[in-house]
Structures are given as C-alpha cells and as structure tokens.
C-alpha cells in the first residue's frame, strides 16, 4: 500500500506501487480489451492518458519487439489489478514491469479497477494522478491533480508526430501500386503495414506537412492517422485537409483522422462521457447491414446526422457506420469527392480484424480516382 490513484473529483484509491515510482498525471481512461496491453501501451493515441486495464491479469505474455505499435510506450500512467510476476510466451523478450520502469511510466496495482471503471463510466473521463512512494497528504495530491491540464483543448499531435518523413514500402513479393501520403498525428505501426500489404508505398509525413509538400510528393491518396488530443485544436491539419479535398485527392482517415475530416467538412466534434476503448465494439456498416466487431480508442466523436444524407461545401455525404452500443458516428463518406473515414481501428492491433476490408476500399478509391 504505497501508491495512490487520485481522481479530479477527490476519490482516492489506495494500491501497491508498481512499475516506475514518482508521480504522473493524465486523463483517466479505461480500456476493456482482454488482450493486447503491449499494443495499447505503444499506441500514440494514449499519450497523456492514464490507462486503466479492466482485464484483471496484465503482463502475462511479457513484451516483444514485433507487437510494438510505435517505438515507445506512450501512456502517462498504467493501472492494473494483478500484474504478472512472469512472462510466459515464446516471443517474449522482456517483461512488462521492467519496460515500464525503463520508460519511466508510473503504475499502480492491486486497486479495485472495476470500482474505478464504474466511477469513470458514471462521471466521465477526468484528470487523474498516480502518486507512488511519495510523501504527500491526500489534500495535496488532489490539488496537484487539479493543476494538471485537461484533455479538452489539448493539442498533443506535435509530441507524437514523426520529426522527419519516412517510407514504408510494400513487402517483398508485393508490387507497388500506389503512393500514399500518411499524415502522422500519432500513427500506429499496424496502419502502414496494412497499407503496404496492399501495394501502397506509404510516406509517413510530419504534422507540419503543407499542401505544397503533398503536391510535390504527388500521392495517389492521403491518409489521416489516429492520434491523441482534442480535434478542435487541429486548425492547421484541418486547413490542409480542406486543400486536399479541393484537389480531389483521395482521403482515408482513421479515428483522429475522421474527427479532422469531419471538422474539415464543417461538423462539430464533441467529447464523449467516457469514450470507447476496447476491442469488442459492434459497429453497423449501414451500406451492407452487417455488424463488425472492432477496436476502438476514442474520447471524441463527430456530430453528424446519421439517418439522412448531408451536404457540405464539398458536396453530399453520409454517415456509413454507427456504433450499435450508443449510436455514435463511426464512419463518414463523401459522395461527390473521394474521401472516407472511420472512427475505429481497422488496423486493429490490438483487436479483431473484421474491418480490415477498409484498406481494400482505400485502394479501390485510389484506383477509381485514377481512372
């Protein structure tokens, strides 16, 4: 009992110090995936978030090099019920706790993660702090949490975007068919990997990319990645997207990318009560009438009409996917311009591969735009 998890609203959970010690702050979010903690930890979208794992045993399979979604662990704090003392998997190369310590991620274990999850579900995502082996009073801890920045209005893309462009080429044996400019707002490794597998040469570009840079690259399509932060702060990228829409270059957006496309089309984005974070989320594909089980990690969503077509300055469009749990907009498409996006993660990692076809759709879109 040497660590405390302290919420913005004053509720405090006492637990065991685990991973790095010290203090950390962020937005408290829970994820319900039962597998894939490594992918979660290395997903840049979790930057500045303290992630609560609802699955009770974490760390069982250790850590490996292959399943990383980026070069580092991004979460600002990690909350688990029962951390594993061993790594049991033939691919494991290191163990979870030592990787977290290396990345200076403060953790806490042994707390009633279900009570904490219910608290956030009922009261919404909020600021949180973890204090591990610190000499502070409860009041002092609450004050420090309340001094931390909130997620609404947070501009975080600069922290996670690549400094320099880099290229992911199709794997050996796959012919290059397309050139894609991927704007990195916190891109996950699985995304370019999925695109490359379909013959796309993916140029991952920094957030500072201009329309001139894009024109110079002359891609078949532009990809807008996932990433952390409030989409309302993304003025530059939103403007860039409008320029791309003007030029009728095919666009595909995922997650944060959908929120940016939505804003570029003139829709508002809003913060969800506690977000969607898990790998079991049912999404209805309105075009086919079929249900996809999908990976989600979003705290914001686009406000758009789900029952009728809408009109934008770029012509007509429609909501293509909705969440069956709560009706949130999960996919957008323009009818008159080559642009579409989803709010969830077809690249999965972690999560099911049901929505993998969206990468094929992107290829088709680029193919037909060429014709």
């Amino acid at each position, binding site marked *: 009992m040497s660590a405390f998890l302290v919420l913005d609203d004053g509720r405090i959970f006492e637990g065991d110090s685990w991973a790095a010690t010290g203090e950390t702050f962020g937005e408290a979010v829970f994820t319900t995936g039962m597998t894939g903690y490594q992918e979660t930890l290395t997903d840049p979208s979790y930057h500045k978030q303290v992630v609560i794992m609802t699955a009770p045993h974490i760390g069982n399979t250790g850590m490996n090099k292959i399943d990383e979604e980026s070069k580092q662990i991004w979460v600002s704090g990690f909350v688990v019920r029962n951390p594993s003392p061993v790594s049991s998997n033939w691919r494991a190369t290191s163990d979870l706790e030592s990787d977290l310590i290396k990345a200076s991620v403060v953790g806490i274990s042994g707390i009633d993660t279900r009570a904490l*999850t219910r608290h956030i579900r009922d009261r919404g995502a909020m600021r949180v702090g973890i204090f591990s082996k610190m000499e502070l009073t409860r009041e002092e801890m609450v004050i420090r949490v309340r001094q931390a920045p909130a997620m609404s209005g947070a501009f975080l893309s600069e922290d996670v975007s690549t400094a320099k462009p880099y290229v992911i080429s199709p794997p050996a044996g796959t012919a290059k068919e397309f050139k894609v400019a991927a704007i990195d707002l916190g891109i996950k490794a699985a995304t370019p990997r999925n695109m490359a597998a379909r013959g796309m040469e993916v140029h991952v570009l920094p957030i500072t990319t201009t329309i001139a840079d894009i024109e110079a690259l002359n891609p078949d399509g532009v990809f807008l990645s996932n990433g952390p932060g409030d989409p309302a702060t993304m003025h530059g990228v939103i403007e860039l997207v409008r320029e791309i829409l003007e030029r009728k270059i095919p666009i595909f957006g995922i997650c944060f990318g959908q929120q940016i496309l939505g804003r570029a089309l003139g829709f508002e984005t809003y913060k969800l009560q506690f977000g969607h974070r898990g790998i079991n989320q049912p999404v209805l594909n309105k075009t086919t009438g079929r249900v996809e089980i999908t990976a989600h990690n979003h705290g914001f969503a686009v406000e758009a009409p789900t029952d009728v077509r809408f009109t934008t300055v770029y012509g007509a469009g429609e909501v293509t996917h909705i969440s069956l749990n709560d009706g949130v907009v999960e996919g957008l498409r323009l009818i008159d311009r080559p642009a579409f996006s989803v709010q969830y993660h077809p690249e999965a990692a972690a999560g099911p591969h049901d929505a993998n076809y969206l990468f094929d759709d992107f290829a088709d879109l680029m193919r037909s735009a060429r014709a």
Partner: protein
Amino acid sequence: MPKDPSIKSVLVIGSGPIVIGQACEFDYSGTQACRVLRAEGIRVILVNSNPATIMTDPEFADATYIEPITTQFLEEIIAKERPDAILATLGGQTALNAAIGLHSAGLLEKYGTKLIGADVDAIERGENREIFRSIVAKIGGESAQSVVCHTITDCYKAATELNYPVVVRPSFTMGGLGSGIAFNREDLELIAGAGLRHSPTSEVLLEESILGWKEFELEVMRDHNDNVVIVCSIENIDPMGVHTGDSITVAPALTLTDVEFQNLRNLSIKIIREVGVATGGCNIQFAINPLDGRIVVIEMNPRVSRSSALASKATGFPIAKIATKLAIGYSLDEIRNDITKMTPASFEPTLDYIVVKVPRFAFEKFPEADPRLTTTMKSVGEAMAIGRSFPEALQKALRSLEKKGSSFSWETPSQNVATLLDLMRTPTEFRLRQVQQALAFGASIAEVHSATKIDIWFLTQIDLINELAKNISAAADLDRPLLLQAKRMGFSDQQISTLRAISEDEVRRLRHRLELRPVYKTVDTCAAEFEAFTPYHYSSYEEESEVKPRTKPAVIILGSGPNRIGQGIEFDYSCVHASFTLSEAGYETIMVNCNPETVSTDYDTSDRLYFEPLTLEDVLEIINAETIAGPVLGVIAQLGGQTPLGLAQGLLDAGVTILGTSPAAINLAEDRGEFGRILNEAGLRAPEYGMAFSFEEAVAVATRIKYPVLVRPSFVLGGRGMEIVYDDESLKSFIVKATEITPNHPVLIDRFLDDAIEIDVDALFDGESLYLAGVMEHIEEAGIHSGDSACVLPSMSLTPSQLLEIRDATEKIARGVGVRGLINIQYAVAANQLYVLEANPRASRTVPYVSKATGVQLAKAAARICVGATLAQLRELEMLPNLEVGKAHGISVKEAVLPWNRFRRTDGKGVDSVLGPEMRSTGEVMGIADNFGAAYAKSQIASFGPLPQNGSVFLSLSEKDKTAALSSAQELFAMGFKIYATSGTHTFLAANGVASTSVRKHSEDERNANDESAVEIITSGKVDLIINTPLGRGTRQDGWLIRTAAIQRSLPCITTIPGFKAAVAGIQSLRNDQLAVRSLQSWLS
C-alpha cells in the same frame, strides 16, 4: 430480418438422460430454447426422455413428449404434431444424431419439415473428421497429421506412419467417447477397437500426438446475415491429452498475446462460415505449440455444447437463448443484451474477472476403473467459480467441489517431492494437488513444468498461493493487511485456520472484527462499460459492492453444487421450482450455486443469483450482504440435496432462519437411535440393526442380527460406501474402507431383507396433514440402491390395505420427525410385513419423476410450505389436488442410466456392471404408457436402446433365481426367441420344457470344445438380449466377462429377475405395437 413468419411450430429435441459428457447443461439450453420460442408465440413440441429436467415441465412446451429419442418415436411425434421446423442443436450430440437419423430416413421430406440452427450438411461438415480436415486446410489452417480408419488393420498401418503415441478419435460420438491415446500396438487394439464400435459410422481417426501443447477453445456464434461474434475464449490449464470436460479450465484465455488470439479468432470465423453453421453457436478447439506458436485446429462441435453453457455462465451471454432466436430468423443486432438492456447481442463479451472451472470425478464409485485422465471424458460434474484474480477463482472453484482433499493444503504430503513429480506426469484427478504440494515442498516451477507441461504462468500463480500460505503460517500476527491479502488470493477461513492452528470460527470472528468482508461484483458482459441490470453476482475482496438495496422480503435458496453420482439434476430441478413459485408468491428469490451446467445458475431463473461456493463461510457472507440489502425471510436448505442440508446446522448456529424442516428434525431422521424411538412410538418396524465404532462391535452386531447385513457409514447420500456383506471377512474389509471415508461417524449395520419389495415414497407435510405424493415400487429387489433401481408409479403389487398402511406410516414419521415440506421414505415389504428402511426429510431424487407422473409440482408446494403455507391453502391455490394420495396418470416407469461404457480398468477391460447398494447411475429416463409392459419397454429403449422383438436371448441364471425366472423364459420361448444358456441354466430349462443351446462359460475348460463360449456369442453379435443374474458371492469372473462384453456391444443386459420379467412384458408390448406416443399435457388433462 426479423422472425421467420413461416415457422409457427417447432419440435425441440432434448438430450435424454444425464450421462458422462452430456449433463444438465442441455436442460439449461433446452429450457432457454423453449422459453424463447413460446415468448415468440411459436407452438413448442418437446421430446426428451429425462423427467428430471425443467424443460419437460408441462408449462415449458405446448406438447411435451417424455418418450425415447429414437427415429421411430420421433417419427410418431412428427406425424402427430406436424412441426414446421426441428431444432436439434440444443440437445447435445443425442439430438444432433437424432436429427441426422431423421434426415437419413427421409422423414424430414416426408413430413415437410426442416432443421433449423444447423442443417445436415453443416453437421456433416463439422463432425466428419475427413471433411472437417479439408475445410481447415481450405481456410488456411492446419490440422494434426492424421489418417481415417475403418478397420483395426487400417489403424495398425496408420499408426506406423504417424509414429506412436497416436490419438484415436471416433466420429460422431460425444464427450470423447471411445477415444484415447495409444502408446503402442496393444493400446491401439483396445482403444481403436472400442472406438470403431462406438462410432455410428464405424470410423475412427488416428492423429499425430500433440500431447503437452496448450489447449484453447473459442465459442462462436453466427447469424443469417453472416455476422459472427466470439463469445468467449477458454484456456485449459491441463495441456493437450486430457479431455476438455476433465480439464481445469479458465476463461478468458490468459496466456495469449493479441496477435495469437486474433489468429484463433480469424480461424474460428473462417471455419464457422466454411462449415456453414447458418445460425447459432459452435465451439472450436485449438492446440498451440508453446515453443513456436504453431496452431493446430483440433475439432468443432456445430451445436451448443457443455462449453457453451460454461461460456454463457462465464460471460453472461446466453448462448442457447440467442442461438434459438437466430434459428427463427433474428440477426444478432436485432437481439438485445439482457444485462445492459441498451446494447445489442452483436458484440463480444469482455471480462473483468477470472472464471475457473474444475471437474468433479466419481472414481471412488468405480474402484476398478482406470483413474488416468485421457481424451475420453470421465468426470461426472463440474464447479465454476469467479474471482478478481486467478488464484482467487481457482481456490473458490476447488472448495466448490465439496470433496475432501480438493482444496490446497500445506501439511507435509505423504509422498516426497520426487514421487510427486513422477506421479504428476500422468494426469489424474489429483494432479493439481500434486503440483501444488510439489511446489510447496521444494520442486521448482521448471521441474513441474517439465513433468506436466502446464504453462509456467499458471504454475507461478500456484506458487504465489503457496508463498502466501507460508507467510500466513509464519507471521507473528494475523494482521489486517495479511488477512486481506489471503482473502484476495481466495484462501477460505478454513484454510487460514489450519495454517494458523486456530478454529475456523476464530478466523471468522477476527475477520469480522477487522471489517474484512467480501463485496459482490456483477457479471455484466462488458467489464462495467455499461450499467448492468441483472443481479448476477460473485464475491471478491475489493472496495465496492454492487448489491442493490431492496424492499421485498427475500428467500435464499441453496443449490446443490457440482453434479455427482447421487446428487444431480433432480435437486437443481427442485431448487428452480422453489425459485419460480416463491417469486410468484411475491418474494425476492436469491439463488446460491456453483454449478455452471444448471438452470438454477441461469440469471433468468431467480431475482438474484450468487455464483458462489456452497460452504458455510461463503453462504454466511451472502446472507450478511443480503440482510444489509433488505429483509431476508430465511434460507431453504431442503431442496438441494445433501450439500445445503450439511450447512443447515451451521447456518442456524450463526443465527440464520432455516425455512421448513428444522436442522434438528433433519438430525433426528439421521440419528438411528432417535429415529428408532419415533418408529417405536408409532408402532413401526425397521430391519434389525446396530451401530458399531469398531470391527469387534460390528461382528457382534452382525452375529446378533445374522448375515447377510447391509453396512454403511452414517450421513451419506447415494449409498456412498454402502455394501451387503455375507461374512466376517468382508465385513472387516468394509470397515477398513468405511472408516477412511468418515472418521467421526459410526458404521451402521442393518439386517438385509432378501427378496423384499422396496418402496419409495415422496410426501408433503405441513405440520398438520400429509399429502402422499407418490408410492413407487422398485423393479429390482431390495439391495440395489434406489437410485440405480428401476421403479414404477403407481406400484404394481401393493394391496389397497398396504397402501393405506404406508400412508399412515408416512404421516406418523413425518409428524414424529417434525417435517415442514418434503420427506422421502424408503420402505421394504417382506413376507407381508412393512419395514421402514430410512427417511430423508428433504427433496429426493424422485421428486421430478413423481411430479411428472402425477401432475403435481411437489417442489413448488414444498417451497410454499417452507414459507408457511398449509396444504389446505395450496389446495385453494390449485397447487395440490383435493386428494390425500397422489394419482398417477398412466403408468410411469423410471429407469436408471449407468456409465459403464465410460470406464475401463487399467488393463483396458471393462468394469463390472453388476448393480448393488452403492449408487452408480448418472441419470434417469421415464417411460409412460397405459400398461406396465409398454411403459417399461419405453424406459428400456430410452436408457439402453431398443429391446429385441425377436432373435436370440442369452440366459445365465444363478441357482436361487432359476425357478423365479422360469415363466419369463417360457414366454420368450413361446414368442419364438432362440435361447442360449450356460450349462446349469440349459439343464434346468430342458427339464422344464424349454429348448436352448448350451454355451460354455469362460471359466469352464474346453472339453465341450464344440460349444462356443458365452463371451464369444455376445461379441460375435449372435445375441440380442442378455439376462445374467450374478451368483451373489464368490468369483464373479464369468458374470463380469459377460456383462462387459454386453456393454461393449451396446446390448441390453439385465441382471435381476424382476428386470427380466419387466423386459418380457416390454417385449410383448413391442410385439403388440402398443408403444404409441402421447404428450404429458394429454396424460395430465
């Protein structure tokens, strides 16, 4: 697409009697199916031969047929009812095989009906191993290398190619029946030989061994829109080589990375699509090589299975209910998740807790049987537990087994570490204990892993439990942090008390003083992402409880725990009935149970469900939590069998109100001296008896009352440890065994009544008056355990005055004991004298059977009496008829089903199937007709398969039985049966004008070399029916050989004279074509 409007009536096929590999999980799934269909306004026609099921309650279907599940009977039902569709995917392998039978006979087309859920092609693709392998290859998966064989010669050849050991798997059997691992040619001959016989298609698959690989199972559902979801992943702690049903399993899978899990998920989805399970559920099993991650697809079941029931309870996702909705046309997104109300069923449950399932075995009932766990399922039941960590769930599950030696303990084991390491190489029911003890006493995780191949993650968790145990016993002070840690790791007060050498009560008082009590979390399908509206709870030592306050008075019903021989579905039936009726009466019903197979643990059954071990500690904590939540009227302990009865006194001592018969009254009936006094006062007789605490005392008693005597330890259920002994020597060997079983209880010795008729009675008593619900006459004579004996209702040979005598005796006993609710009494009638054998003031195994035969819901009435209703009031409510004695509608015969084909000796030969005072049946069937012969024939067909109408009979009668059997033998002869008989029987028959062919006993030398041996004529298929009454004492080698040969040929084998007589009556009925089907509703109307 919503409901298919063309389906207005559906025939639901049940799974028949409870057998190993197919238990009450199919009552759970079938009951859900019936409920769903009726709620949709569909006419439900149900067939199931098992009367102990909830689904066969007349209110669950429009027409309930308690008839054998054979093509012939199904055709009659279909011809009569003309269902639009048949749902066969919820009744286990029995229903699936029945559906295939209907299809092959062209009956689906003939009657213009269709299968829903899965069609014959999909069943074929899923179950035919060759086709399934090609499907796996087509979708890019891998199967174990294998060869299909139809003869034993094929098998030898294939084994040489695959290298020993090889796995033998017969096609179209359930629970791995007939499968096994052959390490050499001799093994192969035994296993594959049996497998070829058990497979309806005489087909077995030989497979490369993947022993020691990790084993996983995914539960998959698909709808007609091709939406597929994975409901649950299950990981076997026991690696490949042990049948899933016999393995300790955990949900969710705990040792997979997301990449590995998604591979399994993708394969599962491709398989269900390719196999073409159009709508509904299936499970798919995988093995993973722990060294390189290679995945091998093992098999699929294109139907709802035992694992589906487990997955439903583990996740809160009701697979059978949803499968039924999908079968009648709904899609997953059109079905609401009951628990969250807001979200659809088209999602994948996610767990924020750990579920552990442990099997319960009954090897003590079959001392001859090979105790090794293999790919043939041998367990008879299971317990499930939920916790917030694996150690917590595991320890809760182990104590849920209610079996001595199941829970971890830390006294020095009798074997040293080296021996333990050696023993654990062979999986048995004791392996987990061996692992835990070896780790506790110095073996390393690596050593244990190398001996067992159990994943080091699980071994490490067990090691953590051991470490904490050391701390608990070494700590100077049992302070709050340590005690909390212990409770969070699932230690019971009892375990802690042993480690601290204090009493359990002291631990409980300390814990309460330190304010350490469990909280109750909710199984909600979504890890708290959405609010849960279904109070399905489990305990954990955490911060926040989710038990909601309530205002209605609550009745807590204690269930019966894991199924075991002697305590099975019949007790769950009574608990469920209590819940239904008390809910109707305006009470809040709270069910406590830990058996995932049951209807009682369906969250739809009671207002609140606690999935918890049935120990005093766990139950008291629930009562405490519910007392805080609102008024609690009390606890019903008389319906769940011995498990809750065993808790009643402890609960009472802790100040809990026991509703109905008091613990003192229960003890009174159990106490021979006290009970004898009641009988004396009432002028009733019991067989002479005595009680002994030592062998010398026992001999003295036996000498006084004369051999043969029936000996048993006190406080038992299902005749555990009961034996008829004929001399001092066998008495001594029994006492050695019995005192091992219950060291604190004396041994009871009764005079054994030879040639008596045994009578079983179920009655209700409200303190004033008695309702004699049913008087059942056993078909086998006294000495065969009542649970293994066939019986008939109404009784066939009692006179009206004897019935009256029984009624009066029952009332006197009920009054004398102080019953409030149900009482079951066993009587014997010998030489016109009524003897009271025993009285059990609780729901009995026969309650559902009597309820169905008489149309009176006994358990419901008993539950009402427990909360204060009188018989008069129940008559006003029309819950009881205006009669003093229940009236049977038609003649109903109950027959027991025995698991002989599941067990072999270590030498590979079958175990002896002779019946005795120790109960060994796993389930029962009922046959109902307007005459005894027809009812008996139906019961035999339902339990053993058809009785022959002509052909050959083998007769081997013991000396004392010859005269009694003569008339039946004559009748068979007159009907034209060819009779084979052993020499003594042959001579006797010849002297009485019945011609027979003499066959040689195995033990006789070969001087009559022309005669074939009895075993030879049976195994060569020359015989259609076997009558073999055992000799009583001495060598039973011949009888045993004959009976085991019969079981291997799946031939009916009758071992008693009354059974023989009934069989002949049944054959007469068959020949006269008197086996018409009739629904229960029609019988009862």
